[in-house]
Each structure stands twice: as structure tokens, then as C-alpha cells.
């Protein structure tokens, strides 16, 4: 149960990191 909860948090975390890096990429690319 604990492992599943940790895995779900990890999945959400990975999703948010990818989103954040994508936004940073778009900012960098659109600025230059």
C-alpha cells in the first residue's frame, strides 16, 4: 500500500517536473 502511494507521488512528481522543464524550454526558445 505504502509502495503504491509512493509510486503515485512519484508519477505526479515526474509529470510536474516534465511540465516545468517544458515550460522553461518554451520560454528559452521563444525568447531567443
Amino acid at each position, binding site marked *: *500500500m*505504502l509502495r*503504491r502511494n509512493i*509510486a503515485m507521488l512519484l508519477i505526479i512528481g*515526474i509529470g510536474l517536473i516534465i*511540465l516545468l522543464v*517544458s515550460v522553461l524550454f*518554451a520560454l528559452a526558445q*521563444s*525568447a531567443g
Partner: protein
Amino acid sequence: MRKFWIVIQGIGWILLYLFLTLIPLFVMLLEPRPAGREFWRELSVALGFAGLAMMTLQFALTARFKILKAPYGSDIVYYFHRNISIVAFLLVLTHPLLLFIFDPETLGLLNLVSAPWRARAAVVSLLSLTGMVFVSIWRKQLRYEYNKWRIWHGLLASSAVTLALVHITLVNHYLNSPWKRVLWGGYAIFFLGMLLYTRLIKPFMLMRKPYLVSEVKPELGGATTLVLEPDGHPGFRFKPGQFAWLTAWGTPFEDKEHPFSISSSAEHPEKISFTIKSLGDFTETVAKMHSGQKVFVDGAYGSFSVDQHAHAEGFVFIAGGVGITPMMSTLRTLADRGETRPLWLIYANRDWDSLTFREEIASLGEQLNLSITCVLEKPPEGWSGESGFITREMLERILPAERRKNLLEIFICGPAPMMDAVENALTAMGFFAGDIHSERFDMV
């Protein structure tokens, strides 16, 4: 020390996953860099590339690499595969949606008759991905047969990735330098390598190590035990509570395998058994199998094992119905090892005649320091034991009052509603969530 390295390995895989997902975005920023465009268009592209990298990595998650599963357990790797695919799907879906919202003219690319090939590849790729995700999430509600779903799942996934790779190649905006092409060539080779491994190499290896059915035994509760012996090879070692993939009525190339818990003792790997309850489709055919029949076994997998928790001062096993099979493997193994630690078995079933392994469990109770509680939903007349469903009050009565981290390791296997209820009850009783281990049948 071993645990430390497993934790490091677990963190390492996660970092590698993030690296492989995000590296295309960093490489795309290397010179020569295409001229910048509007923010939303670049964001759309970034999400598409990250989503595609995740889609290719999905193939590695289900390729059953033991080194990848070791830190987490198979169930968690499949859970991750299933749920991260939703994240990848949303990223990939957002890619065209952003284009449609901020540049409505791009809606014309949906017309497959007039659209260029780069758009056709993208549309069919997204349709494949959408179909695959929806059918996977609602397979059971759609009553879609497991084997058919597996074949379609593989075909749609391969189509989605191949066409998405064709799409980025034809668009050619960010593949404007050799290094960027090498990177995506690497992803394409990785994807093809995974397909080659799972569809050809792995089945070929399994074909070389067949098993013969040595016994087909009917059990109480509509279950059948298959006893298998390796044919011309030593078989594999396994931990009690682990599972393996069984292919009968076909070859490993046909992708007709099913996961089942091993029910025999891990101290006797030369003879392994599976106890399978007839629940429709493949499981119905198990009773029709015969001695001498050739089958193929891919194992062993899973972390639902007492061997993972050598420090425990005792073990609790809570089984519902055919969820008794990994517990039987564990109890038989512990009996063979002369285990002396206290053990508790709480075994819920419909009625007295559904209690698979009833007699053997009673006999194990005499060999081991094992307290056995049978819980019957429909008890016979005069039944003095527990009845109904497993409740918190019942668990409070049966289990010791002391609660301490790492004191008891608790294993639960059975129907999902039972497992949810028992997990919640145990947590509310003060058991440490990290000491509660569940084996879910619905991992695939």
C-alpha cells in the same frame, strides 16, 4: 548493505527515467537552434517530444528485466507503467490541442485526405495511442479478453511510437543537426530493440527451457493444481510468494501467457506448482490439461515474499479465496525450513467447501507455530469460527496487541475490495504501512 544498494539502484532508475525523458529538450536547445517561435507553439513541441520519449521508455518497463524490477517489485513497475502512460498520453494529447487552440488553421491537418504525410502519421499515431489507453483503462468493464487485449496493446503501442517517430522525422524542425538525429535514432533503435527482445529473443529463450505437466490435481473451491517439472534443464529458483508467467496451449511466440502465483515450496524448485481457480477464459482450460503436456514458464517475479523481510519477528498472512496460493507457497517453504517464528493465517472464503488446501493448512498448523482463522461468508450450521467479512474488530481479536515498526510483516492477497478494507483496517489499528504488503491480481 544489500538493502542500501537496492535503494541506490531504485533512485538511479528514477533519475535515469527523468534524464531519458528530458534529454531531448536539452539537446534541442543546442546549436544550430531553429529560430524561436511563439511560446505556446514551443511548449506544444516540448510536450510532444517529452511524451514521445516516455512512450518509447514504456516498452522497457514491461520487458521484465529483473534488474529493473528488483528495487520495487513487479507490481509497482506495472503500476508505474500503467499510470505514467496516462501522463504521457496527456502530454502527447496537449501537443496538437495547443496548436488547434492558438492556431486554428492547423485543424485542417486533421483531414487525412488533404493533409501532408507528417500530419497523417501524427493523427494515426494519436488515434492508436488514444485507443490503446482507453481500452487498457476500461478493459475489464468492456469485458475484453486478456489475450486479445495484449495483442492489440502491443500493436497499437508499436504503431503509436513508430508513427510518432515518422512524424518528427518528416516535420524535421528540431532534427536539424546530426546530433539531434543521432539522439532520436537512438530512441528508435531502443524501441526496436525492446520489440526484438520481447517478441523474439525472450520467447526463443523460453522455448529452449520447456516444462512438462506431471500432475493435474483438482482442489476444493473449483481450483486445479498443475505440477510442472523442468524438461532437460534445472528450472529456476524462486522466493516463496513470487509469481511466474505461464504459457500453455501454444508457444511463447504467440503471446498467450498469464501470470500466476507459484503455490509450491521454494525449497523444491525442481517441481513447481500453480493452483489456478476457474474464473473464465484461460483459467477454465487448466482442468483440461494433461500429464506430459508441454508448457512454458517465465519466472520468477514479484516482491511479495517473506524472504524480503528476514528481520521480522513474525508474519501475518491474510488471504481471500484463491489469494491463498502465494501464502501456501510461503507456508510450505517455511515448514520445509523448520521456521519457528509466530505466524498467523486469516483465510476468508465463501463457504467451508470453497476452502482450497483446507486439510493441508490444518496439517501445516501442526508443523509450524501457526494460528489459523478461517472466515466464512456463508458458514455451515453449527460453525463456531469467524463468519462474514474480515473486519477491524476481528483483526483486533486475532492479532497481537503490540504495534511496532518491523515487528510483524503482513501479507494480503485476495479480491480488491477485501484488500482495500483490510489495508485500511490494519493502518487504522496502528500497523506501520511499510509493513503491509499486498499482492493484487489486477496488475495487468
